[in-house]
């Protein structure tokens, strides 16, 4: 085991422990239904979180993703309602728009040297505003192709339905992991997170990489929007408010440092699963009032962060003693 893999392993262990713990209290949690639900219900979140992982690895942040999902949904619904375009065409169009939107934000960040937080905040207003302008009402999508896509699932023993969108998410994670760890672009993303000025001196193409990163994030938010529209068969301009914070939290719980440069796409997957598990647990419990729900979510978030810190600290302390690395803390 490399010391760099530690956060990933910690997240994995945390998830397994938590799952076992929840299962011991509510055995129904260990069913295929719950596992399938975790995948289906978090599909769109997982997909944006992959994009968010890239952004955060590069030391940036993308607050626009929630709005982009909503925009994509409304855009698809309106297109499918008002024109006779085939959904696949509409999907392609949506992906092109959102990718271009992300790329534009990336270009603004790079060429105008503006902080990502602010550029993407403006992007967040803009995308949701555009969704409002398209339609304030929630627009249902009725198209046979949607029914076909929604009809694709594998029913496991125990009643769990593994749906298409869950598969799309898993695939996104696999592709994302390969891109991050096994391509030059991925390495450049890490380099950017390590320090843009140094990366530049080392010959990393900053403009290309920055624009690429935000384009990926925008494009994946678009994909998540498509998945979300499959999930709800509708486009709604008020949908997925605050999803960017969920995605960021998942990425961080997955062991990626918000300051950039350290982390794994696979870690984000477990981050998503941990967050899904928290919600499932709270619903299974079913006694928490609205406010206690919030407090408990916050406390569990805190507990996971602490657990992670503790595990990392404990292991590195042991390692330090064993090998005597002289890092100044």
């Amino acid at each position, binding site marked *: 085991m490399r010391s760099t893999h530690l956060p990933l392993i910690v997240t994995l262990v945390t998830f397994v422990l938590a799952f076992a713990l929840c299962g011991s209290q509510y055995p129904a949690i260990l069913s295929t239904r719950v596992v399938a639900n975790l995948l289906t219900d978090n599909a769109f979140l997982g997909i944006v979180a992959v994009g968010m992982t890239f952004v955060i690895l590069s030391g940036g942040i993308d607050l626009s993703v929630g709005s982009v999902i909503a925009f994509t949904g409304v855009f698809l619904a309106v297109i499918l309602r008002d024109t006779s375009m085939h959904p696949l065409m509409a999907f392609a169009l949506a992906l092109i728009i959102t990718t271009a939107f992300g790329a534009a934000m990336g270009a603004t960040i790079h060429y105008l040297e503006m902080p990502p937080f602010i550029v993407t905040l403006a992007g967040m207003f803009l995308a949701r505003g555009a969704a409002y302008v398209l339609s304030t009402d929630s627009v249902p999508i009725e198209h046979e192709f949607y029914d076909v896509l929604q009809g694709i699932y594998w029913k496991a023993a125990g009643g769990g339905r593994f749906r298409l969108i869950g598969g799309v998410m898993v695939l996104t994670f696999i592709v994302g992991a390969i891109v991050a760890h096994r391509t030059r672009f991925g390495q450049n993303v890490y380099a950017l997170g390590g320090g843009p000025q140094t990366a530049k001196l080392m010959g990393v193409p900053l403009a290309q990489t920055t624009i690429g990163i935000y384009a990926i994030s925008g494009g994946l938010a678009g994909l998540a929007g498509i998945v979300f529209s499959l999930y709800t068969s509708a486009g709604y301009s008020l949908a997925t408010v605050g999803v960017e914070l969920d995605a960021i939290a998942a990425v961080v719980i997955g062991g990626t440092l918000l300051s950039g440069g350290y982390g794994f796409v696979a870690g984000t997957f477990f981050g998503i699963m941990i967050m899904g598990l928290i919600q499932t647990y709270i619903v299974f419990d079913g006694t928490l009032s609205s406010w206690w729900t919030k407090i408990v979510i*916050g*406390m569990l978030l805190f507990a996971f962060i602490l657990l992670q810190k503790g595990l990392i600290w404990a292991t590195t302390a042991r390692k330090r003693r064993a090998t005597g690395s002289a890092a100044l803390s």
Partner: protein
Amino acid sequence: MAGSTQGLLKRITPQLIILAAALLLNVIVFPDFFHVDFRNGRLFGNIIDVLNRGAPTALLCIGMTLVIATRGIDLSVGAVMAIAGATAASLVVDGHGWFTALIGALATGAICGAWNGVLVAVLRIQPIVATLVLMVAGRGVAQLITEGTILTFLNPGLIRLGAGTILGIPTAIVIWICLGAFVAFAVRRTALGMLIESIGINEASSRLAGINSRVLLVCVYLVSGLCAALAGVIVAADIKGADANNAGLWLELDAILAVVIGGNSLLGGRFSIIASLLGAMIIQSVNSVILLSGMPPEFNLVIKAVLILGILVIQSPKVSYLWYMLRASGPQPQPDRKSPRPRTTPEEKTQ
């Protein structure tokens, strides 16, 4: 400090220009914008509204500026506002005086800030995550206090803090201007400002230079908590009720935006509270344009996004450098390409 007024003026020039432009926009959509009269014992007019309605953001961005100067961020301020408002309301509803309520609210704010500070400074959790915890849980705590209702109160002392006036000027305006001036003065007249900037730029070096970065970090978050609490009390007093669910909702984003419009780098380091306060007023002027324009609300966000983008683009170091190049002639220094920080203030280039 000698020559500091001139330095300050130079520092805030871009903000002043943008503020003037934003106000001009208001005048365009509503020519009577600057009209102020005295009505019902108080100053009454749109410009007063901008100052008054900008109070919560202004108060938040005082603390936020300091937090951001240390390379941190405080996402919990909105939730802390809700908690503080709920505390104050429940105290007066229980029959305590307004002063007790105020102190109670400030104390809760201080506790919340200290909690954030300890997570960041002692447990070394990244600020955005550390404060996310309170952002999520805090609103729950506030609702726990009000039990989910809007806790309405009638205590005149407390109401005066938000909806009252001092010499005809709405109290909220007086409060944010005084506090802003006090904090800005305090950090510059002591060594605090420099020490805060120092840990924001390079904490390792600062620690080795003997700066107690831990205590300083906790203090900074504590101040942010206090500012948020004060804002929370004002917001609650303004509507004579503590609305745990909506008080300060998403206001943290406005506060951060104000700090950035104020020309402060999100990567920490050099800061100016005055500029942040101007940033808050710029945001409020933009909101005011939207309200006065009479456009349908569907367009609110688009207008806001476009205006803010415009403001930020004008402020972008690249663009201001182009400006500088256009005005000047002859062989000119190039922008500092090596600079390890993306934002370089314009005066650094022009000196």
